[in-house]
């Protein structure tokens, strides 16, 4: 017994060891708490966003009945005959997004299929950085491009097209979101196991048949989430529409017309200086809240799509 205790190999006595352990534990705890706090910041951000949007909108909705906000077809909060109908902004947002999606989804999907199923690896590696760069270009630059290049071109093709219109803005926005769609869709397709493709090729399928009939259905959930992400980008995109779509809350779904989107309204107002607390100031938060709800809806939809079409391979 005696010999056992003295033969301790640990250079420290037990009490020292305990002290060290306690110290270590405190340090570990403190660090963990700090890291947790850092993770909590993201939650605080969300709380902050919701709090700002809801509290300012709350004041807004004490003045403006929700019903008229949702049904009025005019949005003139800053003018004498003030109307607070979100519909024109909503129509603008949806129309520009729709144009963008009509451009981005077919092109993005085609590119994704081409890169994932057709292109040689060398081509894929060479082209992908280009697409990434396309996705990295600031949206103000796209706005400039829409205004200076694309809309004048469109006016040549379509006589009578106004100088600001949703078509031009939407097309450029579509190009801007192609990379999001194509890279996510391609990732989804590449995640389809080779055995699935081999099954189709072994039946005598061509690349196109394999891609369309086997790979796409198998990657459907990933592809759909890519689409949803694209839509959600389009809905929230600001500078392109602010610069090129016109700044007029115009209740129309005709892409040939100028209109304002929710996000563009917010920047427009922010360009001036509305006094803190005025109804105009609050109106941008009400608009922001609508925008946030739309993207939230898309996020939730994405979540369910991923659930519903979870890859079973």
């Amino acid at each position, binding site marked *: 017994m005696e010999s056992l205790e003295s033969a301790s190999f640990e250079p420290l006595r037990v009490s020292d060891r305990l002290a060290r352990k306690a110290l270590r534990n405190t340090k570990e705890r403190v660090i963990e708490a700090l890291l947790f706090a850092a993770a909590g910041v993201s939650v605080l951000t969300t709380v902050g966003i919701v709090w700002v949007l809801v509290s300012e909108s709350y004041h807004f909705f004490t003045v403006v009945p929700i019903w008229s906000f949702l049904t009025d077809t005019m949005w003139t909060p800053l003018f004498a005959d003030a109307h607070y109908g979100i519909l024109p902004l909503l129509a603008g947002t949806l129309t520009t997004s729709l144009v963008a999606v009509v451009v981005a989804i077919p092109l993005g999907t085609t590119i994704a299929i081409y890169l994932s199923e057709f292109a040689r690896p060398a081509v894929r590696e060479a082209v992908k950085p280009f697409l990434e760069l396309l996705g990295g270009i600031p949206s103000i630059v796209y706005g400039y491009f829409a205004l200076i290049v694309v809309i004048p071109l469109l006016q040549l093709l379509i006589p009578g097209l106004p100088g600001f219109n949703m078509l031009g803005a939407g097309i450029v926005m579509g190009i801007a979101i192609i990379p999001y769609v194509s890279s996510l869709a391609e990732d989804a397709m590449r995640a389809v196991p080779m055995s699935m493709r*081999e099954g189709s090729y072994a*039946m005598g399928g061509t690349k196109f048949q394999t891609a369309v009939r086997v790979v796409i259905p198998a990657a459907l959930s990933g592809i759909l989430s890519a689409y949803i992400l694209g839509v959600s980008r389009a809905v929230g995109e600001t500078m392109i529409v602010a610069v090129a779509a016109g700044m007029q809350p115009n209740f129309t779904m005709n892409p040939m017309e100028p209109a304002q989107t929710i996000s563009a309204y917010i920047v427009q107002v922010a360009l001036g200086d509305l006094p803190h607390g005025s109804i105009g100031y609050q109106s941008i938060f009400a608009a922001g809240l609508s925008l946030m709800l739309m993207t939230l809806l898309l996020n939730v939809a994405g979540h369910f799509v991923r659930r519903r079409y979870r890859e079973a391979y």
Partner: protein
Amino acid sequence: MRSIDRPDRQAATPTAASVAGAPNAHARDARSLPDTPPVKAAAENFSFYYGQFQALKSITLPVYEKHVTALIGPSGCGKSTLLRACNRMHDLYPGNRYEGAIRLLPDNTNLLDPAVDPIEVRMRIGMVFQKPNPFPKSIYENVAYGLRIRGEKSRSVLDGRVEEALKGAALWAEVAHRLNEPAFALSGGQQQRLCIARCLATDPEVLLFDEPTSALDPIATASIEELIDQLRQKVTILIVTHNMQQAARVSDFTAYMYLGELIEFGRTRQLFVNPVRRETEDYITGRFG
């Protein structure tokens, strides 16, 4: 030359020269001999390279019509490589190279000829993989797939062929009432039979099986083996298996491979009971591998 047709009498494979001179000689021979069936396909001095690495070394091997030929050998010996060469699966990946020939009878086409479209080869030869790989579609669409890519649109033709194929794969009874359910809802064994039905629907001349039961439980395995037993009446089968009992149970002929070479080929019974080569014997008795 006799060696090919008479695996039971002589050792191993024919010499390179014997096949090179008369590509379809064994076919003729096969027909001429009473105890071997006609040849449906044959590898002739077939070598294969994954980039620099030579995975198969001058393989010469006949596959007899409407019989089951099993490929056995330790892991990595090149069984899958040989099987997959038979429907040009290696074409899907860059850097692979074929040498020699694999001929399909009766038309004596060299499957590996660059002028032969791999799609044509694959339309004639079906393949069933190690892991069941049904498409993410309904049961019906899985079976109809091969017909659809051949351009068949008539619903009634499809219906008929799908039923026939499912019956052929001994799956009809189990799925007849739920053809529109997703294929993933089936059990592993059912999925594998579905993959077989998928091949049968297009009437392939040869069916390739790559360890078709290694991902399955014993009951599912038994049902697949039984199915293979029935299929041999209609179609030529080449099967890779690492389970020697299975090879013994289902095959008529067996080829033993080692390190990319064909060591011995013969009637299954004979090869298992009385192998000519010592390596084969070591492997079969479990002393090695």
